[in-house]
């Protein structure tokens, strides 16, 4: 993608609009980003505008490229583990879970039950944190500044739990191949339960501010519509897909970790517009709370690490394992040549794939909608660029 854009960034934009528009010579080409308050990092969107109307977009990415996949080829399986935290840095726990489970599958080991329960609790907490951050920034983009501070206040509690558990707040590196790095600290269950009681009314508070807010509904209803068919064609996953009415969640479709043990629902929207995505994510936050509530009560006793060799040499072969990250399907494709280092690691990041839908969603909309749609896609540039 980057290559193509360096050659000719706007040619395909020109081709698709033969019809004459208002003051043709004054079509504006605007560079939104990489330094822009609403592009969630360093996304650069080239907008072709007719007044306020968007005629086409082109995403230029790679400003945060660190070559994570290449780095993997020169690290042992264990050494690469912390790197995945740096991809989707607001959902580092999910990244770690996906990688660890993929390698475990390659090694043919399974993490002990206790470790899997801890994993579920932490991953769902992380999903909450990610959705909270999304809600705050998305609302900020649309102009509501207050929800940002509310969500950050509550996300802080989650980060405190992470910090107590593993010492890090953002790039947690909470799991190890074969289990968890750390045993839970004293009072872990009590604190998580306290957090659940604390956060449940808070989610109502966010909804009170936004769900029936006239301006919020007008700004999000019928904005950035995408149908289920288009979603599937583009490979869009996660809440964006579910808001279009497809009941697809890897936690149910291909259960992993301890998810089969829990009872939860997959929230689904109908219209596939920004408002539905908002509702779906809000519902998902409640479902996450439900899962945590079930899991935290019955964390089994036992070891937290499976028996894995000190020097990891997976058998020759390849594996694709994907999990439901907060933003969609996060997949790891790992090829092993039998040595201590992976031959190739390919990450299927949800943000990168979802970002493809941007152009389709904003064609013919207004500039303000581009901001709303970038927000609703919930991209993290660390993950898009890797």
């Amino acid at each position, binding site marked *: 993608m980057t290559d193509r854009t360096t050659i000719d960034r706007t040619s395909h934009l020109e081709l698709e609009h033969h019809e004459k528009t*208002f003051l043709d*010579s004054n079509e504006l080409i605007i560079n939104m980003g990489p330094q822009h308050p609403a592009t969630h990092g360093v996304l650069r969107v080239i907008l072709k505008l007719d007044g306020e109307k968007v005629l086409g977009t082109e995403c230029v990415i790679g400003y945060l490229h660190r070559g994570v996949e290449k780095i993997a080829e020169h690290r042992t399986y264990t050494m690469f583990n912390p790197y995945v935290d740096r991809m989707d840095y607001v959902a580092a726990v999910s990244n770690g879970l996906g990688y660890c489970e993929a390698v475990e599958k390659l090694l043919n080991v399974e993490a002990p039950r206790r470790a899997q329960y801890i994993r579920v609790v932490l991953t769902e907490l992380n999903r909450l944190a990610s959705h909270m951050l999304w809600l705050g920034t998305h609302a900020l983009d649309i102009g509501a500044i207050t929800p940002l501070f509310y969500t950050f206040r509550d996300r802080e509690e989650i980060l405190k739990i992470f910090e107590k558990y593993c010492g890090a707040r953002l790039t947690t590196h909470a799991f190890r191949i074969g289990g968890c790095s750390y045993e839970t600290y004293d009072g872990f269950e009590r604190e998580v339960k306290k957090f659940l009681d604390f956060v449940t009314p808070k989610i109502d508070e966010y909804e009170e501010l936004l769900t029936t807010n006239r301006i919020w509904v007008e700004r999000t209803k019928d904005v950035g519509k995408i149908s289920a068919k288009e979603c599937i064609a583009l490979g869009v996953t996660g809440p964006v897909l579910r808001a279009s009415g497809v009941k697809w969640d890897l936690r149910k479709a291909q259960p992993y970790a301890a998810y089969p043990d829990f009872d939860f629902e997959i929230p689904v929207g109908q219209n596939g517009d920004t408002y539905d995505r908002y509702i779906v994510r809000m519902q998902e936050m409640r479902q996450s709370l439900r899962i945590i509530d079930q899991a935290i009560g019955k964390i089994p006793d036992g070891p937290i690490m499976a028996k894995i060799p000190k020097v990891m040499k997976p058998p020759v072969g390849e594996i694709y394992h994907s999990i439901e990250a907060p933003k969609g399907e996060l997949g790891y494709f790992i090829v092993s040549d039998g040595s201590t280092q992976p031959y190739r690691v390919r990450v299927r990041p949800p943000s990168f794939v979802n970002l493809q839908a941007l152009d389709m969603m904003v064609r013919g909309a207004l500039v303000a909608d581009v901001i709303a749609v970038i927000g609703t896609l919930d991209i993290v540039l660390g993950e898009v660029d890797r």
Partner: protein
Amino acid sequence: MAPVATTFFFYFLSALTVLSAVLVITRKNAVHSALALIVSLLGQAALYLMLYAPFVAGVQIILYAGGIMVLFLFVIMLVNIEKSQREDQFNKQWLVGLAAAIALGALFVLVYVKGRALFPDRAIQMPEQSNTQQVAVLLYGNYMFTFEIASLLLLVAIIGAVVMAKKRI
């Protein structure tokens, strides 16, 4: 209100008005012209105030400076002016323009000399505090029909402008 320093303000304002009118027709950049025109219009509004016509002055500010000039600036921004700035700004008719100006000036002088009696140097005392009320009485009394026609004219202008500027209807 007792007028203060009428002579000074008259000469100051009329100099401002006329000089900015000169700038309007000589500036290369259309935005600069518009800026000068705004100054000229505001100067005229002040002159209206000196002529005890506060309502006209208010209308001048709110409609001309606040409405029409915004429209002008809006259109200048829409049309590509960099190109038009590189072109020659004046056409070949400057001779005609000069002749017209001289002829008009001569006409004005002539009219003044011949029709001096038409300008009695008296002024009726205008009650400034009730100017708006009196204008309103005239506007909705004697000139009611004209007023309605003016509103019709505005309606036609709205429709005309929309038809002209819209891409397709």
